[in-house]
């Protein structure tokens, strides 16, 4: 564990200081005597795994949540931040991880809502344009939010915060929805802000980014501050070690070449969006062979959801032979039929889709594994259900209170291990996994990735959809990119790299033509 490094404050008091902040929830101590100091103009990272307590701490600073005890000093003076409006008055701005925008209103209406008093919309529009130009965040004030892409919405959130001339800007996991190129642009904006004297609190678990951007980092683990360091002098590995408290596990790579059997075939799949806010699929083609892992990279909102529900059968399509499972056309089939053919599926939402939160693990096992001996003659066989659940808990190292524990009592990582375990134990011929390690702690994430690799080696065809490029590069044999409802031709991993995939995510590069064409501002279309 790195020794805590003290950050010098040459210009007097820190912009923001937290002393002994505590916050307890019924089942967990989210913040335990947190100390934090941010200098003026400093880009300060708050680094920690999911569940470390970072979000809670930010909510306390922004006035959304009240701390149980502790002090908050702003510019050296103790203050009590009781509401977001007051936080904004003090000069604290926040850009949320999950945007707080109203879809059916325009950009300027949204921003007006966040301001006190009755701002004149015309003046506000002019201000929006000027801020957006100054910081390189192009945005049209009169556009309706629901027509905007995720990257554009984030720009609106940032501009909204900047319009109030903040002295401290909190950014909560800002890059989870951006392509590598867009991340660079964001960093330019943030550096400029920092030069102008605004401090930035940068919440993230992405070590490369923190190293590239931040001046200082406070590391949190399980609700406590473990230490403070200078990311410019650390390596991602050493920071990870601080974050996790132990050495990071490494995946054993794939050992066997893929087979030639075509297990999952998608043939020019086109379908309209399933809702007013969705994305249509356009001529998607895909083949997954036995014993290989194909990855689909891309920011959410580009048709992944529509593709997944078409593949799983949750929203079947009309043309039956556009999707083939082990040679059988299944486009119009429901999930039960596809499961009987050997398909298993792990969705991106654990609670509320992959598992029912208020049911026990045993009852959740029944959710998808019911084709075996768990159901006999229409009646439930409790013995078989419990046996299966115990096996799952043991083999996949699920930390829980037993087969009768409620699904929602498990941590994200453990529940994900259970769900993946449940699907793997059914010995699928084809496994589709969406966002396998989203919101999962590092240890569980490594376990899950290893599970997928082992499954691949045993001959299952696996399709992984993920926003984390690092993860895809670690486990996949071939990779494709999903952008605007279209899927690129999958490329073997050895023949590509992060930059190229990043470019493809913006929809610019046309690899088949062997050249890149520039048309836009380099962010998520």
């Amino acid at each position, binding site marked *: 564990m790195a020794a805590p490094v003290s950050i010098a404050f040459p210009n007097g008091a820190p912009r923001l200081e937290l002393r002994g902040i505590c916050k307890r929830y019924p089942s967990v101590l989210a913040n335990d005597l947190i100390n934090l100091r941010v200098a003026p103009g400093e880009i300060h990272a708050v680094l920690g795994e999911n569940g470390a307590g970072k979000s809670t701490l930010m909510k306390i600073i922004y006035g959304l949540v009240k701390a149980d005890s502790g002090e908050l000093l702003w510019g050296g003076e103790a203050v009590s931040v009781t509401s977001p409006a007051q936080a*904004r008055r003090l000069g604290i701005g926040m850009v949320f991880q999950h945007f*707080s925008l*109203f879809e059916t209103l325009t950009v300027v209406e949204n921003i007006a809502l966040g301001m006190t008093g*009755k701002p004149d919309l015309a003046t506000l529009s002019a201000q929006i344009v000027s801020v957006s130009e100054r910081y390189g965040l192009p945005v049209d004030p009169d556009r309706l939010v629901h027509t905007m892409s995720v990257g554009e919405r984030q720009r609106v959130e940032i501009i909204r915060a900047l319009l109030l001339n903040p002295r401290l800007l909190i950014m909560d996991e800002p890059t989870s929805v951006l392509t590598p190129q867009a991340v660079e642009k964001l960093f330019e904006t943030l550096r400029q802000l920092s030069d102008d004297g605004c401090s930035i609190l940068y919440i993230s678990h992405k070590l490369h980014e923190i190293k590239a951007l931040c001046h200082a980092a406070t590391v949190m683990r399980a609700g406590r501050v473990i230490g403070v360091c200078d990311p410019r002098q650390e390596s991602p590995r050493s920071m990870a070690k601080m974050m996790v408290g132990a050495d990071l596990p490494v995946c054993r790579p794939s050992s066997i070449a893929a087979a030639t059997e075509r297990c999952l075939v998608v043939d020019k799949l086109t379908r309209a969006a399933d*809702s*007013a806010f969705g994305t249509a699929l356009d001529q998607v083609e895909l083949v997954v062979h036995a014993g290989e892992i194909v990855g689909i990279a891309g920011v959410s909102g580009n048709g992944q959801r529509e593709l997944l529900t078409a593949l799983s059968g949750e929203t079947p399509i009309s043309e039956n032979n556009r999707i083939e499972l082990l040679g059988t056309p299944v486009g119009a089939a429901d999930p039960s039929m596809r499961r009987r053919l050997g398909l298993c599926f792990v969705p991106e939402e654990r609670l509320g889709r992959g598992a029912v939160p208020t049911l026990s693990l045993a009852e959740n096992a029944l959710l998808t594994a019911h084709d075996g001996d768990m159901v006999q003659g229409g009646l439930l066989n409790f013995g078989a259900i419990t046996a299966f659940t115990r096996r799952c808990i043991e083999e996949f190292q699920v930390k829980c209170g037993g087969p009768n524990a409620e699904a929602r009592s498990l941590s994200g990582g453990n529940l994900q291990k259970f769900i993946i375990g449940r699907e793997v134990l059914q010995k699928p011929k084809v496994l589709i996994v969406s966002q396998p390690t989203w919101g999962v702690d590092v240890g569980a994430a490594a376990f899950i990735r290893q599970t997928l690799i082992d499954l691949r080696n045993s001959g299952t065809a696996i399709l992984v959809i993920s926003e984390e490029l690092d993860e895809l590069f670690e486990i996949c044999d071939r990779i494709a990119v999903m952008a605007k409802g279209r899927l690129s031709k999958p490329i073997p991993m050895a023949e590509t790299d992060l930059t190229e995939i990043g470019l493809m995510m913006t929809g610019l590069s046309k690899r088949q033509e062997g050249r890149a064409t520039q048309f836009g501002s380099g962010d998520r279309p």
Partner: protein
Amino acid sequence: METLSAILIATLVAGTPLVFAALGELVTERSGVLNLGVEGMMLFGAVTAFAVTYTTHNLWLGVFVAAFAGAALSAVFAFLTLTLNANQVASGLALAIFGAGASAFLGKPYVGVALTHEPFEFAGWVSGIPVIGSFLVQLHPLVYLSWAMFGGVVWFLYRTRAGLVLRAVGESPTSAHSVGYPVNTVRLYAVLFGGAMAGIAGAYLAVVYTSLWTEGMTAGRGWIALALVVFATWRPERVLLGAYLFGGVTTTQLFAQGAGIPVPPEMMSALPYLATIVVLVLISRNPTLVQLNAPAPLGKLFHGEG
């Protein structure tokens, strides 16, 4: 021309309680709360208005107190759902059942009793207005109040900042909370407004439309008002249209009987209910329409496959 004018008046008169109740529920639902108890609040308002009017011989006092009665009942609902986080559907049903029971109990002494207050008379000059004067005097001032409420709701929702905040709360309570708006307070006001309007609707039925009290006299109009809000895809101008369409259906029933058409009266009475079903189906079958217009938390309840 006479008959046309008579039909028009009958339609407006029959539609007015629906206008009040549906406008009130529209505002409530726009803030993201589904209050199924409209029928109960209307009945409670009706019995209150009747009792007060009977005792004080003052119709306006009766209506005024009825508005409070409706709001009071809706406050119980607000307490259950906003403060205690109880299930909205179950709480609304409880409100409907309670309102029906309480009004039946409280109204027992008033069954078969006649109101003896002075009927409302317009000032002499009103009937003198050219062309529409004689028409205007045939409508009770509450009808004009309903139009004023319509105008007020439209102005509030689309022209004021408070209305914008209410719509924002309805569309995305989590975002509104993040921005710092007091979601529950906004919703409370919306629910109270809905209750007051339902109370006025009931009052109108008991002391203007008829001058009687009978158990269950709203005969499902509260539920029809709920359907109307869906039919109107949560827009006030369509609520007005829908309410008068129903008024028209009710009027048809009366005129058909008067014209001697040999249809059993019960069948004619069933028309409004059947019409409600048809209207619900027509709107609900277009899920995109519902999704784009419904306040997000309600969308699931009415859209089904949310």
